[in-house]
């Protein structure tokens, strides 16, 4: 089973070099409808194609900024980094991979956890950064999410976790695997203290992240067309040796199979969460 797989070979055929140069920076060809879309239109539309509604992947910080009141948040454990506990080396060393990733993304790990306000309610949010080694979960991601859960429990503030991950991080071996148990055990206590937890699954959420906290919300909701699953589509194809049906493992497919509470477009996400948290009230006294 594969929890983290580099995406490759699924880009749309790129336009001819000449055309690309002309349009570079201003327009792009939509991954969803192939129409030429003005980038500025995408930006003002929360990175959702105004023509077909295709949801582009966005960074964790962008999400937090759009989600929380006035785009304000207080980040916690911002400096926590992986210590490369296994001294893992594949075609390059994990240490180098971390350094390069940090340089490229400006992030130190694949999750950001914050305190902020949502519809004036104090709230704890953890948002995963897919561009950081595929949003994979190692010790730091596990620790930060566990701390977010513990903060929510101690403060009795609602918790929202926004998942975007290929699963457990191979370069930390079984340490990554056990983060699934650590986080889920922590959620057991949150569950018992009746503090609400809403899981938001975004494209893509697979492997050990889906098989732990992402599926354990009081509500599990997803963005349209998000890829969500346990095994990645390629692994399944290799195992069963046949092509997968259209739309398999997409958010709508999971909704139809009873695995999600709702599919919520990005534009409505903030209002949806505010509304939902009016029903899932933190009980006091």
């Amino acid at each position, binding site marked *: 089973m594969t929890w983290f797989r580099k995406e490759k070979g699924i880009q749309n055929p790129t336009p001819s070099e000449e055309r690309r140069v002309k349009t570079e920076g201003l327009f792009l060809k939509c991954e969803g409808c192939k129409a030429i879309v003005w980038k500025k239109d995408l930006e003002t539309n929360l990175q959702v194609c105004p023509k077909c509604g295709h949801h582009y992947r966005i960074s964790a910080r962008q999400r937090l900024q759009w989600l929380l009141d006035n785009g304000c948040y207080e980040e916690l454990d911002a400096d926590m980094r992986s210590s490369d506990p296994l001294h893992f080396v594949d075609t390059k060393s994990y240490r180098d991979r971390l350094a390069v990733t940090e340089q490229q993304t400006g992030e130190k790990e694949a999750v950001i956890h914050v305190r902020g306000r949502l519809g004036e309610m104090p709230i704890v949010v953890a948002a995963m950064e897919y561009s950081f080694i595929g949003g994979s979960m190692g010790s730091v991601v596990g*620790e930060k999410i566990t701390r977010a859960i513990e903060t929510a429990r101690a403060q009795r503030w609602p918790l929202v976790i926004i998942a975007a991950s290929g699963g457990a991080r191979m370069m930390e071996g079984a340490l990554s695997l056990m983060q699934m148990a650590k986080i889920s055990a922590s959620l057991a206590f949150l569950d018992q203290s009746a503090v609400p937890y809403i899981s938001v699954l975004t494209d893509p959420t697979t492997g050990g992240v*889906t098989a732990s906290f992402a599926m354990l919300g009081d509500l599990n909701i997803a963005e349209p067309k998000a890829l969500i699953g346990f095994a990645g589509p390629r692994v399944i194809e290799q195992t069963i040796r046949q092509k997968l049906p259209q739309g398999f493992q997409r958010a709508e497919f999971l909704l139809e199979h009873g*695995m999600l509470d709702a599919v919520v477009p990005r534009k409505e996400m903030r209002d949806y969460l505010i509304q939902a948290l009016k029903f899932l009230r933190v009980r006091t006294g």
Partner: protein
Amino acid sequence: MSDLERSIADLKERIEEFQALPPSQDQQAELRGMRQTLEQLRRRVDTNQQKPLDAWERTLLARHDQRPYTLDMINLIFRNFSEIHGDRRYRDDPAMICGFAMFDGKPIVVVGQQKGRNMKQRIFRNYGMPKPEGYRKAIRVMKLGDKFGLPILTLIDTPGAYPGIGAEERGQAEAIAYNLREMAKLSVPVIITVLGEGGSGGALGIGVGDRVLMLENATYSVITPESCSAILWKDQLHAREAANGLRLSAQDLLDLQLIDEIVMEPCGGAHTNHQETANILADRLRFHLAELEKTSPQERTNLRYEKFRRMGAY
């Protein structure tokens, strides 16, 4: 027959089995990988080096088809095993065995993945890869044990949870996630033993307990070395490097403070003597169960959480 010779015989058999499957590109790549490993093992025999086994050799040993499987251990350690079937949601999963049994004259609940020893059994047991209904059956039976105060012993031996269309449709991820959370809440003593292959989330789905033990040659890993090689090296030829890099042996897991104890195997490995393996394991289970019964349910669940809470290095 030495371990090395057995690994060779095992690998040869796997290659034969594999050749019988309909051909595909991936299969060819995997075959090449297996043949290369076979060659490496043969060379080891030739030079007659008696180094300790590396992680890859242990991986092969953990998958050895004469290794004691869950039902072998159940029959050798417990009395009056009475199997409980089905998840009451969809169907019974033969890759997951659940039931009541007597251990030292006391009732317990036992849960574990089951592999098959011949082709027919392997297909019936789905190579020890449970589907969501397997995990749902497991937690149902564990909760039954919890309700009636029966200690829970789980035996892990799986390449992983099954990756298939039906398994995804029925929520493989949700089934495992739910078990992870609910096992943390169980009020009775829970002892986990990794018998053979501890294949990632599919293993962990019955792996949250007060004690986690691992047989000496068992493995516990976030991903199989073969898949790790395929993803990071883009081929199947680096499985040995991946196995060593992933630190998946019992000693590694103990060093990383992810398990509590290594259960020694008889001289030559667990596959050479099931009865002795069972005797050693029974002894350790007896010891830990007695220890755990000294603590209150509340204290036990707190300690269980603290144990998993500490896992990780950053």
